[in-house]
C-alpha cells in the first residue's frame, strides 16, 4: 500500500481528473479522502493505492502531468500520523448496552447517539484499530457503518501546499521526480 498526499487546485472537476487517472492507468484506489488544505484555493487529498514502488513512482509522475495538481508526496515511508474516522451503528438493547459501552471505552471511542435499540459509536484512529473495534462489535450486530478513508500528515515542521501560486520554480522540486506540463 502506498499513501500519497496530493495538493490540487480547488476547482470543479479536479477530483474527477485525479480519480480518472487511477482508473485509466489501471491502479485500484483503496481509499481517497478530500478536503480543504491550509491554503485557500488548494485542496488536499489523501490517496491510498495498492502498488509496488515502481508503480508508486509512475503514479507520482502521472499525477504531476495533471495541470491542476500542485504537489504530490508519497509519504508511505515518511513518519506520519495516519487516521481514519468511523461512525458505527450497533444494535443495542438495555441488556447488551453496558457491554458495548465498555468496549467503546476500551478502544477510546465515543458514543455519539443513543436510541432505544441502537448506539452510534464514533472512532478516530488507525485503520487497524478501527478494524479491531469492529471485530468485537460485530457479534452485537453492526447495523450501519461509514468510514472516511485514510487521512495522513507527515510529522514535523512545515506546510507543504506552498507550491501554489504562479509558476513555482524548481527550488521546491524533489530530487526523485521531475515535472512537466
Amino acid at each position: 500500500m502506498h499513501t500519497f498526499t496530493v495538493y490540487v487546485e480547488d476547482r470543479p472537476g479536479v477530483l474527477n481528473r485525479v480519480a480518472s487517472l487511477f482508473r485509466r492507468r489501471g491502479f485500484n484506489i483503496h481509499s481517497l479522502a478530500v478536503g480543504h488544505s491550509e491554503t485557500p484555493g488548494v485542496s488536499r487529498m489523501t490517496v491510498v493505492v495498492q502498488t509496488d514502488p515502481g508503480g508508486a513512482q509512475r503514479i507520482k509522475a502521472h499525477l504531476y502531468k495533471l495541470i491542476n495538481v500542485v504537489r504530490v508526496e508519497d509519504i508511505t515511508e515518511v513518519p506520519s500520523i495516519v487516521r481514519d474516522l468511523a461512525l458505527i451503528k450497533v444494535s443495542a438493547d438495555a441488556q447488551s448496552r453496558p457491554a458495548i459501552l465498555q468496549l467503546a471505552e476500551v478502544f477510546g471511542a465515543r458514543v455519539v447517539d443513543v436510541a432505544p435499540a441502537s448506539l452510534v459509536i464514533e472512532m478516530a484512529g488507525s485503520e487497524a484499530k478501527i478494524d479491531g473495534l469492529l471485530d468485537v462489535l460485530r457479534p452485537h450486530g453492526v447495523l450501519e457503518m461509514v468510514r472516511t478513508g485514510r487521512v495522513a500528515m507527515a510529522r514535523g515542521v512545515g506546510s507543504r501546499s506552498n507550491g501554489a501560486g504562479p509558476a513555482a520554480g524548481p527550488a521546491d522540486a524533489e530530487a526523485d521526480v521531475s515535472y512537466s506540463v
Partner: protein
Amino acid sequence: MKLTGAQILWESLVREGVTDVFGYPGGAILPAYDAMLDYPIRHVLVRHEQGATHMADGYARASGRVGVAIATSGPGATNMVTGIATAMLDSSPIVCITGQVGSRLIGSDAFQEIDITGITLPITKHNYLVTRADDVARAVREAFVIAKSGRPGPVLIDITKDAQQSSCEFDWDAAAPVVPGWRRVPDATAAAFEEAAALINAAERPVIFVGHGVMISGAMEPIQTLADRAHIPVAMTLLGIGGFPASHPLNIGMMGMHGEAWVNLAIQEADLLIACGMRFDDRVTGNLRTYAPNAKKIHIEIDPSEINKNVAVDVPLVGDLHDVLPRLLPLVAASDRAAWLRRIHDLKGDSAVRDIQSLPDEGHLYAAHVINDLWRATRETETIVVTDVGQHQMWEAQYYHHDVPRSLITSGGLGTMGFAVPAAIGAKRARPEADVWAVVGDGGFQMTMCELATAVQDSIDIKVAIINNGYLGMVRQWQEFFYERRYAATPLSGPDFVKLAEAFGIRGIAVSTRGDVLPAVAAARSHAGPVVIDFRVEQEDTVYPMVPAGADLHAMIRRPNPIVETGADV
C-alpha cells in the same frame, strides 16, 4: 476595450500566431463563426469534424506550430474524439475549440448538448469548460502553453454559447496563464550524466534510438554529433523516421514489428541502448522479458512517467533532448566501433536477398515498388509524405527514405485509419511550398475520402497515392499468418477511384504496371491541383519481416528465401 467572448476568442488566437483553422460550423459555435469574419484567419471548411482534427494534427506535425480545429457542440464535438486521441498518442500539439449549449442549459440534456470535457478527459493533456466571456482569453493562452510545452499534446476548450455572446473588458496581459501545476523540468544531475557517459564509453555494441521526441525537441544536430563522434549506429521508431538522415551511413533503419531484420537482431545483441525521445512501445519491443537482454539502457525523455514504464532503465536523463544532449556530448569519447559496425553489416547480408526489391516484377505491381519509385521521383524536392495505417504505412517506412525531419507524418500510437488525406491537407496548409503526398490504402481512403471536396473547395494541392489491393491488407496479413487464411471481412471493394476523382473535379490516374508508376507520379507533380492515383497493386502481398504481437523481437517471420514467384508473394 469591450469585446464579446467570440471576438476575444479570435483576438486571442491571432495573438497566439494562429493564421489557419480547420472546422465546421453549427448552432452552438455560430457566434464564434460570425466574429471570425473580422479577423485575419483562413478557415478550411471540412466535410467531417474528424477531418478537422487530423488537419490540425497534420498542420502541427508539418510545421511544429499548434494546429487549431473548431466545431460545434454535441455531434460536432464527438466527431473530433478520434482525431484528438490520435494527437494525444503521438504527442501532437493541437487546440480544439468546441461550442457548447448556453451555460444555463448545461446538464439538462439540451439539444446537441454533450459533456465533451468529460469525454475527452483521458485523451487530452488538459481541457476547459468556459462559461464566461471573461475566462476566454486566459483559457486560450493557457491552452497554447500546455499544448506546446514539455511533451506536447491536444487541449480542448469548450465554450458555452452565452460566453461567446456576452461582452466584457478584454485585457490580454491580465489573462496571462496561471498554471500552479507548472514546473520547469529540473536538470538531471551531473552524476547521472557521468554515469551515462561511462556506459557509452564502455559500450562495445551500443545503438542509439531516435524517436518522435528528437523532432519535437529539434535535437537532430546533437544526435548526429553523438553518433558521429562515437560511431554508434542509429535505429528509428516509426515516428522517429526523419529525425536522423536515412542516407547517413550510421542509420541502420527502423526497429520493431516491421522493422528491418538486422536492426532487431542488432538490438538483441546490443550491450547498450541510448533511447532518445521514444517510449518503448510494444510495437517496438515485442516480448519485454526477452527484449535486448544484454543491454544497459539510457533513457533520455522529457516525460518522467515514461521512465521505467515498459523497460527498466539503468540511467534516466529526464529533460528536453535539446538541453540534455549538449551536456552529455563533452563527456563522450570518440571511438570507431569497427567490429560492431561490421557485425551489423553482416546481418544485413541475408536480408538484401530476401528484399522485395529483388523480386522481378513480371507484370506484377508491388506496393513496395510504387513507394520506392515515388521516393526516387520526389527525393530531390521538398516533399512531405503523409501515410494512413496498415501495410502501405509499413512499406512507406521501409522503402521511402527520409533525410529530413517532418517529412513523414503518420498515425503511430493510435493507428488511425482515415488519417492520411485530412492530415495531408493540414500539412499542405502549413507548408505550401512543399509537395505533399498522401499515401493511403483503399480501406483508409474510403474512411475520409470526403475531404477531397475540402481540398478542392479551398484549393489545397495534395497528391493522393492509393495503394489499392482490394483488401484490408494488414488485417488480411494477420489472418494469413494467425487465422488460417480465413479472410473474414477483409476483401474490400471500392468505387472506380479515377471516376471518383473526376466527380470531385480533380484529376484521376490509374496505374497497374510498374512502368507506369514514374510517368503517373510525374504527371501528378506537374498538374496544378489535387490528383488521385489509383495504384492497383498485388492483392495478397505481405509485409516482411514481422514480429508477431508479443513475440520475441528476434523471432521474426521472414520473407521466404529463395523467393517463390507465385504471384501471391508468400
